[in-house]
């Protein structure tokens, strides 16, 4: 699914660069967690097509994505990144969106759209 469709399904707003190339990038699966060690343990391949969904809104989320080569993060529950974190995300080339939906609702919406978990 294209990033743009994911954003639409979640009524999400971009926090970082959101050019056409970002909007058109295809994603296949989602990993949702507030625990960074879970993400670090679970995401092992296909990171380019994995969306990280999280309520953890700080620079450690960005660092985790950086280590994993994950390029797309959606922050749930209307959380926002502080300015310096947004700057950091931009420098890392990570696209960040924010949605008002809770973790459960955001996951449900994406699942209904056909996105699966990281193990298919």
């Amino acid at each position, binding site marked *: 699914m294209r990033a743009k469709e994911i954003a639409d399904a979640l009524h999400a707003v971009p926090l970082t660069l959101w050019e056409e190339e970002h909007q058109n990038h295809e994603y296949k699966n989602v990993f949702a967690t*507030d*625990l*960074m*060690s*879970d993400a*670090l*343990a679970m995401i092992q*391949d296909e*990171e380019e097509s994995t969306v990280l969904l999280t309520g*953890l809104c*700080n*620079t*450690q*989320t960005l*660092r*985790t994505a*950086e*280590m*994993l*080569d994950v390029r797309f993060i959606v922050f749930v529950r209307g959380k926002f990144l502080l300015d310096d974190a947004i700057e950091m995300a931009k420098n890392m080339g990570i696209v960040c969106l924010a949605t008002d939906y809770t973790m459960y609702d955001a996951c449900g919406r994406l699942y209904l759209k056909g996105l699966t978990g990281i193990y298919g």
Partner: protein
Amino acid sequence: MDSILHKEYTVVQDDYVNAGKVSSDIKSTLSEIGISPKVLRKIAVASYESEINLIIHAYGGKVFLDVGEDGAVYLVFKDPGPGIPDLEKALTPGWSTASEKARGMGFGAGMGLPNIQRVSDDFHIESSPEGTTLSLVFRSPV
């Protein structure tokens, strides 16, 4: 061991602002010398988990990066204490003594050490009240 690349870093206890910078530098340094993305990701994950442990559990510490002539990557994380009283427990998935603050930063799942062990080709840990030394090797096909 003949090292073709050597770097040292200092990690400061409770320094959440800079947490991850060392691992980020290690990742980009190794990327420049041509380590494959897949191996690089394993190294970055292990390095980051270890770096965070120095920040949230130890009194800070030092990180040593070496690359052998055969392309093997050696990482050593050395801290001056307080040590891990029960290593077996520490290596059990889910076991954690992380503080509320560390949990608030997304850590404390008790997955770090098991994960580091899983992604590394060689894993060696020694601990006493005087400190903990974690030595890792990653062999990358060249």
